[in-house]
C-alpha cells in the first residue's frame, strides 16, 4: 500500500472532497463501508492471507491505512490514536499469528479502557476447528481481554457487526472490541448496506447518577475537613477535564491524579499535587493517606495506586464516580457510589453543593507537604547525565500541548514525574498492563491523531525501544515527524532497581552486556540519530532533533545507577514511600 500512503500532501488534500462511499458488493466491502459510516479515518495493520479480502476492499476507500511492521505495533498505534483523538482506533491483522500478535495490544487497551477495534481475518468457516493453516480460536483467546468480541458468520450482517463493534468500543466505559472475519464471509457476495452503527440493546450505560445519592454525597463534601479529589483516566475518556478543573477550583479542593489521569489538572496549578501511587509524588501520597473524604472520579483503584488496601486512605469516606457499576466497591469500598458519566456527575454535584468545604488548614497542609517532599534531583557536572535533566530539557523545548508517549520502566516514571503536563490527551502510556515496547508504535498512532504542528515526543528506555524498534521503519516510510528520546542506562532499569532493593543486588538478566548504537540504528532505518553523553550536549541535540522534519532518535546515555524515587513498596502504605534505597 506504500504507493498510496506516501502520496504527497496535495493529493491528500484533494481527496478531502466528497467521494462516493464504498459500494457494497461483498462481505469485505460491507466491512469497509461500515467503518466509513462510523467516521473511521485511519487504520493500522499488517496484511496476510485471511484478511486479504478486507485489504482489497480498502483499495477504493478514503480510509488511510498505515502498514505497520508488526501487529503488536498496529494495536498500540490504534490505542494511542484513540487516547490522543478520542476517536476509536482500528487495527487489522490476519488470522493465526496476526491475531495472536495483536493480543498484547488488545490486553493493553483493555486494562486502560481504550476504544480499540480489532479486525482479524479467519480461515473459511468450513475449515474452522480443523487446525487449518494460520487458524487460532481468536474469539476464544481474546474473550477475557475485550469488552466484547464477535465471530462474523454472515456476509449480509458483517457490516452491522463491525458497526456495532465500533459503537460499543467507544460508548460508556470504553474498551477494545474484536470482530473475527472468516475469509468465506468477507469473500461472499452481498449488496446489503450496513445500517447506522448501534450499540447492542443489552448495553445501556447510565449517564446520570441518582439524584438522592448526589445530594447525600454533596452533604459529605460540604462537611469534609480534608477533602481530596482524585482524577483518573475516566475523566480524560469522558472529555471531562474542563469540568473537573472548574469543580476543583470552584470549591478549592486539592487534586491528585492517577497516572492515566495525568493532564486532567494542570500540574503547575496551585491545587494540583500531581499523581499518586507507587512512584507518585510524596505530597500526593501524603494527601491520599490523610484525607477524610476522597472524591474519586473515573478510577478503578489499581494496586499501583492504592498500595496495600488496608492502608489506603484509611480515614477517608469515599465518593466514587464511575460509569462502570462493576468498579464500585471492587477494590475500595465506596461509601457514596455515583454511577454515571464523569463530567455529568460532576455537574450534578456542582448543582447540589451549596457551599465549599471549610478546608483552609488542609490546603495549607498540602502545600507544606509540597515543600517537605520536593521532586528534585542533583545533577553534578562530574557525574553521568541524569535522566530527569533530559526530561526537563525536552519539556522546556516543546509546547504545552506536546504529546508524550512512553514505554514502560524507569524512563516512564521519570517522564511522568519531571514533565509538567498541562492538558489531557498529552500523556500516552501503558498503565494497567505495563507493556514494554508501547512507546514507539504509540508515537506513530499519536502522530496520526495529532493536529498539524503538534509535537510528538516518545520518551523510551533502551529495553523498551528494542522491543518494538522495527516500527521505526513505519515512521520513516510515513515520514512522521516524531522525536524519540531514549534514556539509555544499558539495563532493564526497573528490574535492576527491584533487584537492588529486594534481591540483594543480584542483577540477573537485567543488564545488557552489549546494546546497539541507537543513533546508528536510527540512521540505518532512514531516520536521524544523535548520541548524547554529557550535559552540555543535551540542549543542542534536543533542538536539532525537534527541528528535524521526520523521525529522529536521540540516544541519551544516562547515569546507569540512577533509580526512581519516591517509591511505595508493593503492598505498602502510600505515605510510607521511600525517598532513597536505604528506606526500602
Amino acid at each position, binding site marked *: 500500500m506504500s504507493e498510496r500512503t506516501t502520496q504527497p500532501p496535495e493529493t491528500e488534500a484533494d481527496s478531502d472532497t466528497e467521494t462516493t462511499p464504498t459500494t457494497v458488493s461483498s462481505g469485505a466491502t460491507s466491512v469497509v463501508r461500515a467503518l466509513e459510516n462510523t467516521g473511521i479515518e485511519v487504520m493500522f495493520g499488517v496484511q496476510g492471507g485471511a484478511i486479504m479480502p478486507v485489504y482489497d476492499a480498502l483499495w477504493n476507500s478514503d480510509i488511510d491505512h498505515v502498514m505497520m511492521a508488526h501487529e503488536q505495533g498496529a494495536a498500540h498505534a490504534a490505542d494511542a490514536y484513540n487516547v490522543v483523538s478520542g476517536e476509536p482506533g482500528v487495527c487489522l491483522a490476519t488470522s493465526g499469528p496476526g491475531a495472536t500478535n495483536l493480543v498484547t495490544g488488545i490486553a493493553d487497551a483493555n486494562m486502560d479502557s481504550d476504544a480499540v477495534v480489532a479486525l482479524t481475518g479467519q480461515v473459511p468457516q468450513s475449515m474452522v476447528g480443523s487446525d487449518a493453516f494460520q487458524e487460532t480460536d481468536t474469539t476464544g483467546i481474546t474473550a477475557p481481554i475485550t469488552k466484547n468480541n464477535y465471530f462474523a458468520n454472515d456476509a449480509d450482517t458483517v457490516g452491522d457487526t463491525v458497526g456495532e463493534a465500533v459503537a460499543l468500543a467507544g460508548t460508556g466505559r470504553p474498551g477494545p472490541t474484536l470482530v473475527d472475519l472468516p475469509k468465506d464471509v468477507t469473500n461472499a457476495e452481498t449488496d446489503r448496506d450496513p445500517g447506522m452503527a448501534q450499540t447492542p440493546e443489552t448495553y445501556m450505560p447510565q449517564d446520570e447518577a441518582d439524584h438522592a445519592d448526589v445530594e447525600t454525597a454533596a452533604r459529605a463534601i460540604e462537611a469534609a475537613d480534608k477533602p481530596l479529589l482524585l482524577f483518573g483516566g475516566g475523566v480524560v475518556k469522558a472529555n471531562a477535564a474542563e469540568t473537573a478543573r472548574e469543580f476543583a477550583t470552584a470549591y478549592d479542593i486539592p487534586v491528585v491524579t492517577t497516572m492515566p489521569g495525568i493532564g486532567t489538572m494542570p500540574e503547575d496549578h496551585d491545587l494540583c499535587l500531581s499523581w499518586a501511587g507507587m512512584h507518585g509524588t510524596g505530597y500526593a501520597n501524603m494527601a491520599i493517606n490523610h484525607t477524610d473524604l476522597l472524591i474519586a472520579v473515573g478510577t478503578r483503584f489499581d494496586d499501583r495506586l492504592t498500595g496495600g488496601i488496608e492502608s489506603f486512605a484509611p480515614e477517608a469516606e469515599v465518593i466514587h464516580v464511575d460509569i462502570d457499576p462493576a468498579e464500585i466497591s471492587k477494590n*475500595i469500598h465506596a461509601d457514596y457510589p455515583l454511577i454515571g458519566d464523569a463530567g455529568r456527575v460532576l455537574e450534578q454535584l456542582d448543582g447540589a453543593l451549596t457551599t465549599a468545604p471549610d478546608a483552609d488548614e488542609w490546603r495549607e497542609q498540602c502545600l507544606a507537604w509540597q515543600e517537605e517532599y520536593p521532586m528534585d534531583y542533583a545533577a553534578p557536572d562530574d557525574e553521568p547525565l541524569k535522566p530527569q535533566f533530559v526530561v526537563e530539557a525536552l519539556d522546556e523545548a516543546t509546547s504545552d500541548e506536546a504529546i508524550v508517549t512512553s514505554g514502560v520502566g524507569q524512563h516512564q516514571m521519570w517522564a511522568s514525574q519531571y514533565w509538567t503536563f498541562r492538558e489531557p490527551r498529552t500523556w500516552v502510556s501503558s498503565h494497567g498492563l505495563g507493556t514494554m515496547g508501547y512507546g514507539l508504535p504509540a508515537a506513530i498512532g499519536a502522530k496520526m491523531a495529532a493536529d498539524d504542528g503538534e509535537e510528538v515526543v516518545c520518551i523510551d528506555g533502551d529495553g523498551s525501544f528494542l522491543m518494538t524498534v522495527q516500527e521505526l521503519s513505519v515512521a520513516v516510510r510515513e515520514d512522521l515527524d516524531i522525536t524519540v528520546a531514549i534514556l539509555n542506562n544499558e539495563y532493564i532499569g526497573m528490574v535492576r532497581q527491584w533487584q537492588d532493593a529486594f534481591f540483594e543486588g543480584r542483577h540477573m538478566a537485567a543488564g545488557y552486556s552489549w546494546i546497539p548504537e541507537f543513533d546508528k540504528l536510527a540512521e540505518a532505518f532512514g531516520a536521524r540519530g544523535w548520541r548524547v553523553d554529557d550535559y552540555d550536549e543535551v540542549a543542542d541535540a534536543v533542538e536539532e532533533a525537534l527541528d528535524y522534519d521526520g523521525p529522529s532518535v536521540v540516544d541519551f546515555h544516562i547515569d546507569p545507577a540512577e533509580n526512581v524515587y519516591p517509591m511505595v513498596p508493593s503492598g505498602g502504605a502510600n505515605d*510510607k514511600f521511600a525517598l532513597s534505597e536505604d528506606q526500602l
Partner: protein
Amino acid sequence: MSDGLDGPEPEERPDPDGRRNSQGIRIDPEVEAEPEDRRAVLSALVKHEPGVLANISGLFRRRQFNIESLTVGPTTDPDRARITLEIEESEPGIEQAKKQLQKLVPVIAVTELEPTAIRRELALIKVDGSAPDQVGAVAEMYDGKTVDVSQESVTVEITGSEQKINAAVETFGRFGIHEIVRTGTAALERGTRKTT
C-alpha cells in the same frame, strides 16, 4: 547508587489511625471482622448464542469466584437461555459477581434469587444390583424412581433440593454406589414473582 530525595523519613511521618479490611471497607479496629461467605443463587437471562457459556465460565475462572454449580438451558424464547449459578462468596464478592456478570454484553439480566426460591437438582445414582427391591424402596422414600435395572446394577433418578440429594446419596451408599451424576441447581422464584 543514586542519592534519592529529600524529606522526612517514613518513620518520622504522622500516622493515621484508621484501617480498611481486605474488601476495602473502612473498619473500626476494635470490632474488626471479615465478612463470612454465604451461598447465593444467581439467575442470568442471556442471549442464546455460541460462546455465552464459555464467556461466563471464563469470567468466573479468571476472577476466581468460587463456583458451586452452573446449569444452563433454553427458555420459551428461542433467542434466550437461562443460566443458574450457585456461588459461595462474601457479601462484597457476591455483589461483584453480579456486576461482572451483568457487564457481559450477551447477558440480558441478572438477579439473585430469594432464599425461598424453588431450587431443584437432579441426580442419577447407579448402585449395586444385588438388592433391587430394597433399592426401589429407598428410592420411593425420596420420591425417586428406578430408571434402569440390570443384573449388576440399578439406576435411580432423584430430584429435589441439594440437601435432599445429599441425603439420598448417603442412604444409597449402603448398597454400594457404582456411579453418580448430578446436574447442579436450577431455580425459579415462587408464585408470580419474576425470576429476571
